[in-house]
């Protein structure tokens, strides 16, 4: 600790400026998101309404769910380009199965298994076992899965016949129950932070007050906003609840489990990871399976919300998912990154899409702006490392 305080002691003014700059650097995406939200609220009255924000949150979930998996893939210095096609294939397979008379409750897990686990194991097998670049394997799967979806449907859309299925993407948890859930989650979050601080203090570990304050403020702000939006408009959308669970599981896995540690190790130095006793092949196969299952799930939610599946669903989703991860600060070189960053990245893209549509920006321009923002985010990341 002594060396730290020495460093901080060099010139009080300089230190203060550095704190501010570091703070902005550490939370650049978050600050950008907040600025964007505030700006849009002033620019268009329709933006900061419970209805719009509720819809926005539901739109974000699809890319968000895939991006949680993509964070893990990129963390181990991999890439998965096939996610968009997996979305399309799983939407088609699930709706077709229901058309053939399979009940929703069976069709959904069967799709996750056949499309999600199946494609994931296939990708993972080639990548892990034979060391073929993931870019190539998943690029191949991008066209294979899309081709399968087109073949199965003969190129036309599949309508949904079930009454239950549309609930997955379209239903809401009633406002009363939503508020109870939100309050319970908030209480749990506050308790866990409190307990962490207590334990750290008990073990003489210095608590990073700045990080604590930022996290606390973001959490309180987030919960307050969610509470306002979801209790005044219909309640929590089911897909948002699903996304929340997956996001939490992702954060927890990377932060606090053996598996998460191994991903950081694998991405940081694969040879050292292997010589440290990490089963590289198995770990990679699990990661590629996880992202495929999550993509299949996203496909099911999308088909449910749209009440039908077109074989072209999910086209270009891989780019949005990769963009969310990269904007969220995960390094494409592997070894460093966070799911929380990815969530902010996904929100940023969602808000941007939503805001630009509200303001009447032509779709063509939207694409250009989105591309520029991805470049900006990566540039910022590179500059920060220098």
């Amino acid at each position: 600790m002594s060396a730290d305080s020495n460093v901080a002691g060099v010139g009080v003014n300089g230190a203060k400026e550095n704190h501010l700059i570091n703070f902005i650097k550490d939370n650049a995406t978050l600050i950008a998101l907040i600025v964007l939200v505030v700006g849009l609220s002033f620019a268009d009255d329709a933006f900061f309404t419970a209805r719009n924000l509720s819809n926005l949150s539901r739109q974000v979930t699809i890319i968000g769910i895939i991006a949680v998996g993509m964070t893990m893939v990129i963390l181990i210095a991999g890439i998965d380009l096939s996610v968009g096609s997996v979305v399309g294939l799983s939407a088609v397979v699930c709706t077709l199965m229901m058309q053939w008379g399979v009940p929703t409750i069976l069709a959904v897990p069967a799709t996750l298994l056949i499309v999600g686990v199946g494609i994931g194991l296939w990708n993972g097998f080639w990548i892990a076992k034979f060391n073929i670049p993931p870019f190539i394997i998943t690029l191949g799967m991008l066209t294979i899965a899309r081709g399968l979806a087109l073949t199965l449907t003969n190129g036309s859309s599949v309508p949904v016949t079930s009454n239950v299925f549309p609930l997955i993407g379209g239903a809401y948890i009633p406002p009363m129950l939503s508020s109870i859930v939100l309050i319970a989650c908030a209480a749990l979050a506050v308790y866990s932070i409190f307990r962490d601080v207590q334990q750290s203090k008990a073990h003489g570990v210095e608590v990073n007050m700045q990080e604590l304050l930022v996290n606390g403020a973001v959490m309180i702000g987030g919960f307050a906003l969610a509470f306002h939006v979801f209790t005044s408009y219909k309640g929590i959308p089911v897909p948002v609840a699903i996304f929340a669970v997956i996001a939490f599981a992702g954060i927890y896995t990377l932060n606090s489990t053996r598996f998460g540690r191994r991903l950081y190790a694998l991405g940081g130095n694969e040879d050292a990871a292997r010589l440290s006793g990490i089963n590289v092949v198995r770990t990679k196969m699990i990661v590629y399976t996880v992202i495929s299952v999550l993509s299949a799930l996203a496909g099911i939610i999308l088909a449910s919300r749209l009440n039908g599946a077109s074989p072209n669903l999910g086209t270009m989703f891989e780019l949005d998912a990769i963009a969310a991860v990269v904007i969220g600060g995960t390094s494409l070189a592997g070894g460093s990154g966070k799911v929380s960053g990815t969530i902010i990245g996904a929100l940023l893209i969602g808000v941007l899409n939503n805001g630009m549509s509200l303001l009447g920006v032509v779709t063509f321009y939207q694409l250009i702006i989105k591309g520029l923002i991805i470049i900006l985010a990566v540039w910022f990341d590179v500059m920060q490392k220098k």
Partner: protein
Amino acid sequence: MSEVVLKMQGIIKDFPGVRALNNVNFEARSGELLALMGENGAGKSTLMKVLSGVWPYPTYEGDIFLRGEKVRFANTKEAEAAGIGIIYQELNLIPGLSVAENIFLDRQFTDAKGRINWNQTFAETQKLLTELGINDIGPTDLVQNITVGKQQMVEIAKALSLKAEILVLDEPTSALTDKEVKDLFRIIRKLKADGVCMCYISHKMEEIEQIADRIAVLRDGQTIGEVTPIADITLDQIIARMVGRDIKDMFPKVDFTPGEVTLEVDNLSVTNPDLPGSYLVKNASFVARKGEILGISGLMGAGRTELVGGVFGAYPDQTTGDVKLNGKELDIKSPKDAIDAGIALLTEDRKALGLFLDKSISFNTTISSLETISSKVLGIINTQQERKVVKEYVDQLGVKTPSIDTVIGTLSGGNQQKVILGKWLNSRPDVFILDEPTRGIDIGAKVEIYKLLNELVQQGVTVIMISSELPEVLGMCDRILVMCEGEIVSNFERDDAKKEAIMAYATGSA
């Protein structure tokens, strides 16, 4: 007495919170080799960066004189133009380009239209190589196809083509074979005769004795004592200057009676993936006992690393042979199997194979034994327990660090090595294999590692140590295997082991 070409006076260099150089004074003469010695972190590399303009004036204080004239470099180009050439530890060549292209990079001979005159470029390169007496590589050879030793020669040739009068060599022999070292020394002697002034950074005492004329010692950013002719100073005095205290016993070997056989390796072979039909290790059989330190000696490339790698399951597809531990046959298909069986391997190449450089000490310590600090089913890590375990190792091994969350890449080599030792101790091995455990580590840390090895054998661990430094092998090992060209050619008991005999077997001349 020859002319003083380089003089550095009162050099002070601060980094945020740390004073890296604190009043450094020394001078070097033409035609001499000045050895710059000091422990890791003593400031040698920083000093050379000041000299070469990497840290331009006024980011440092003090004066640099070249032939009595004060110089202040704004960048490395200016230093280069003034005749200062630096050969860094990590070579700066472009692997996909030829020797000639590397030497004359960005300075190729061109005609009036700017087209490269390759004939002249190649001819000039050949002239340089001939001058240096390098006859086994040509101007058109690709750098990626020549050995590290030859690459270093190319760097030297490049520096000379820039008319360098002062040549700085930063640990030039750390990746060279014995023969390459001999070649390098031949060239150094020739350069001396030509009047080039060389500053030579190294940890290796033997080398210094062989080729240095005078020696300057750095400790904690300060020059300790005067620049001293090598003839007027003893090894012990050099070490005392470097560590600031007398090291009474460089090799604190404790006598210990070896117990029963633990590890049995029978007919282990490792094939060479680059050359089908040939072997990196051929029919190697040996045993190791409880409570002994078994040394494996040999030249670089003799197959020592591959032998222990084969035992550890590092290349399962290339390895054949039987490994038994405590009488039980093992089926090792991966490092994980080896670790689960109770074998640990500290790898030679710390950066590439041992460390997660941008991760914390804590992360690096527990990565190979996460099972011990996490729940069985979901693998949830108990952070408090992890902190406790890591703290214990950091304290026990004396790792110098502000906190266990410090990024390991920021520590010195010796401290990094201690963390890796902690990582493997935490896996509680029965057999602990260490491949060059003290390479690139300062003397103080070396002795600490030796003491730790003693403690381990006393606790009944079987220790196997590969080392290229003969004094270390002779000083610390109970038994010594010698390898030559992939085979175990000899087995010495401690009392029978002599430097000359080991070298004879290692070079295949016994």
